[in-house]
């Protein structure tokens, strides 16, 4: 758990980086004036909102994170095709199910990320997280093998997230 920011004027550098990028994205530009503005907002906005941010586990291994993002994006594309077919086919072929997935990660942010990933990827929607943060309830559109699904989610998504946030192993 990170309790104190490392730099007073840059409480969350990652956020700042994100904001910096987004500003340039928004303005479609790399003009010097906008770089200054982007830097300005990247510094001021996190300062302004720092009070509104709960502490989160520290972020590690950016490369792994990038790989994770790309993997999820790829899975989204596939998921869409699969779901598209399921939707178009008559619904009697569907095999929906509720599945409870035991969680190893504990903190809010990683759990949220995992739940989001699950929702964005093949045929599953995160429906609920148990109060003790130990179970993720998932609705599956077309369940083949329950255990395989649990393993897949834990291996493919939870593990990298755990590594990225270096938590509780």
């Amino acid at each position, binding site marked *: 758990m990170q309790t104190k920011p490392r730099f007073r004027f840059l409480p969350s550098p990652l956020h700042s980086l994100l904001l910096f990028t987004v500003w340039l994205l*928004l303005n479609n530009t790399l*003009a010097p004036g906008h770089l200054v503005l982007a830097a300005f907002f990247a510094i001021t*906005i996190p300062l302004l*909102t720092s009070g*509104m*941010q*709960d502490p989160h586990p520290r972020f590690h291994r950016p490369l792994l994170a990038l790989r994770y993002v790309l993997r999820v994006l790829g899975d989204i594309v596939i998921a869409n095709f699969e779901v598209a077919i399921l939707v178009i086919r008559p619904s009697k072929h569907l095999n929906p199910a509720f599945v409870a997935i035991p969680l190893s990660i504990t903190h*809010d942010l990683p759990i*949220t990320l995992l739940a989001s990933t699950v929702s964005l990827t093949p045929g599953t929607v995160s429906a609920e997280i148990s109060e003790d*943060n130990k179970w993720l309830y998932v609705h599956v559109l077309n369940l083949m093998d329950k255990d395989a699904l649990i393993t897949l989610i834990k291996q493919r998504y939870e593990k990298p997230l755990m590594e990225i946030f270096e938590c509780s192993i």
Partner: protein
Amino acid sequence: MNLLWVVLLPLIGTLVPLFTERFGRNICAFCVALLPAWSLILVLMYAPDIFNGQAIRQTIEWIPAIGLEVSFRLDGLSLLFLLLILGIGLLVILYARYYLSLKDSMSRFYVYLMLFMAAMVGIVTSNNLIQLWMFWELTSISSFLLISFWSHKSEARKGARMALTVTGAGGLALLAGLLLIGRIVGSYDLDTVLASSDIIHAHAAYPVALILVLLGAFTKSAQFPFHFWLPHAMAAPTPVSAYLHSATMVKAGIFLMARFYPVLAGTDLWFIIVSLTGLTTLLLGAYIALFKHDLKGLLAYSTISHLGLITLLLGLNSPLAAVAAIFHIINHATFKASLFMAAGIIDHESGSRDMRQLNGLWQYMPYTATLAIVAALAMAGVPLLNGFLSKEMFFAETLNQSVLGSLSWTIPLLAVIGAAFSVAYSLRFIHDVFFNGQPVDLPKTPQEPPRYVRIPVEILVALCLLVGIFPAFVVGDLLHIASFAVLDHTVPVHNLAIWHGLNLPLLMSFMAMVGGVILYYNRRHLFEFQSHFDTTDAKHIFERTIQSLVKAAESITNTLENGSLQRYVFTLLLCTLVMGGLPLIELTQNSGTRASIPLDGVTIVCALLMIFSAVATVIWHRRRFLALIFLSVVGLIVSLTFAKFSAPDLALTQLSVEIVTIILLLLALFFLPQSSLKESSNRRLSVDLLVAGLIGCVIGTLCYAMLTTPLNTMSDFFIANSKTGGGGTNVVNVILVDFRGFDTLGEIIVLGIAALGIFKLIANMRIAIPARDDKGRAWSNDPHPMMLEVVSQSLLPLALLVSAYIFLRGHNMPGGGFIAGLITSVAIIQQYIAHGVQWIKPRVTIDYQWIIASGILIATATGLGSWLFGQAFLSTWFDYFSLPWIGKFELASAMLFDLGVYLTVVGAVMLILANLGKLTTSERLDIQENN
């Protein structure tokens, strides 16, 4: 010297009692008397000029727009009345000093009395019609105060109100009459008016003006059928009756007729109305007076009767009759004032005014009795007393008329009958009070009153005698100049003497005497005869009339203003329908010459979406959440419409407002019923539907007609000057912050005020919080879902960045302070939704109210900045700068203005929404639904 002072002195006199009461009653009364006395001296100083046939005038301009001048004139008639008003007024002041008991507020009494006196003086000296009317109304007002002096008594209040109503109504008629005369003559100057008798007589509106003026005079002078207020005015303290109801107020009506005698009299209409009214009043008053057991009641009806006599005389259209009328004015004032005073003394000393109780007072107060008897004899018209003289003149004049054509002989006969009754009631006054056995159950043992209270009576009775014995010497000149004024400078020959030889009038007097005595001796039969008649008191009729008026008014109001908003809105919509729809009927063709835009599929689909959703909102309006969802679809399509028709700023604004509205409605819906039963009947629904549908048709037609007509607008100016003059390429935004920045300033102020108002509404609101939802389900136990919390938190900086982006580009591209403000607010609200108030509280310590205020201040200050450069408020400034490496950039004061907008929006939205959240408490109770 100044004529103005004659009026001003009594008027100033109204203030005297307020300052002198503390020095004791004697000093107070003395000081109060000083000013009218002074005024009287002034009048007397003018008297020689008047007796020389002059009229004195004084005019000051006041309100020319209504023809009102401060204008006074003193002529013979005024002089006569001034002497009566001021002279008897002084006597009444003296009398009242001893009459009023210690409980009564002396200063209050004197204030009212002086006010009244001033008003009377004003009436008789006015040389301007409007001013005359002003004083006329002042007498009504002050008499109201005087009559209701003992306001704790119900009859005093009612009597005063009745007097005020009747005389007030007459006053209004008089006003109309005077205005009409003014319009006919073209001036409100009395001199001019009095000189325009031909114009007035010839004018088509003469009868109307005459009737209106006479209504004023008759009500004031208690002429039939307006006589009924006077007896009830006897609830006033006796000094008031002595003054108002003998010498002054009731005489104001007579004065009015005398004043306008030159211009209004002389026609058949005048003749018929005035003389017949007078005659009826004379007879009625005299008849009823006989049956009154109340001493003052008797005197009141006697007054009515004598006023009728004077009116009759004035109505006869004969100069000599007018002289007689004026003479009787003087005589009646003296004997009636003294009689009232005597009655007051009797009442004061014996505790009763009921003649059934009062008997044999001669033994107890012989001196007072003597005075009263002399005065009563004057009233009866006994020779050697003043009443005899004028009554004889009256008889003579009744013989000289032809009111009723060949039936005119009845008038002298009726006059004699009236006189006989007058003798009878005078006899009753004398006999029933001072003789006729012993008193019955009097509250007090009667005794002679204090010395000073008799002085006024003595003076007046002495006058009765003096006038009665030496008429020409005492009042000859006064009567002459007064008649001189009334009769337009041509006074007929008359001879004021006790003895005119044996003639018909003398015989009539004699017959009246004898008749009166006979009547009085047979009074028992008369009383019995009278008791067969239902004597409905005018007071009850009056009160009942007023009551039923009020009842009728109540039922009308309750029917129309039934407190149902639906009806009010319906009326409003009907008006809208009529006003918007009628001009459309004149519209021969709806479509103009403007080329229309071809239809496309996406538009049709969006339109269908909007139509279905709008209709669904209406159909399901009682299932509120559902309706809300459909409503938001409509809002979404509206935004898309704006985008489609080239209004990106509008689309953005509509979208953001839409979301905030939905949040707001959801917040509120929680505290309101989720659904309601069908309340309106089918008939009502279909009527509403019809009206709403018709208005929809009107609006749609107007819209279509507008869309298809070509339009030349001033918008080119904005497009041409947006960049060069306002420094921005987004013309809409430049209009908002520059061309029409004032609108925007107003708009954010509206928002700010709304927030303050809402905060005010929320403060101390005690509202039940539903423990379950509308289907009876318990609420979820997860107030702040974790995922929502985390994601909302991380969205906040992004949203702020986007709002900064929208804000900064606003001047040149779609966006601006308002939308940016809404985005910021929504982002913060999202935190409230996700985390709850408790979580936010320690994290946001700023007062939203300050943000609103500083937003408004920044926007205003930006506007004010232009003052420094000699420019008008809200003149903008912008310029382009260039920095190394960064390059060229623009700075504009409009941005600062927009910042003000941004801050106000954020402050207002947050103040509204965040505080709604504070309504909830931790526990939720089951509430009783009241519908």
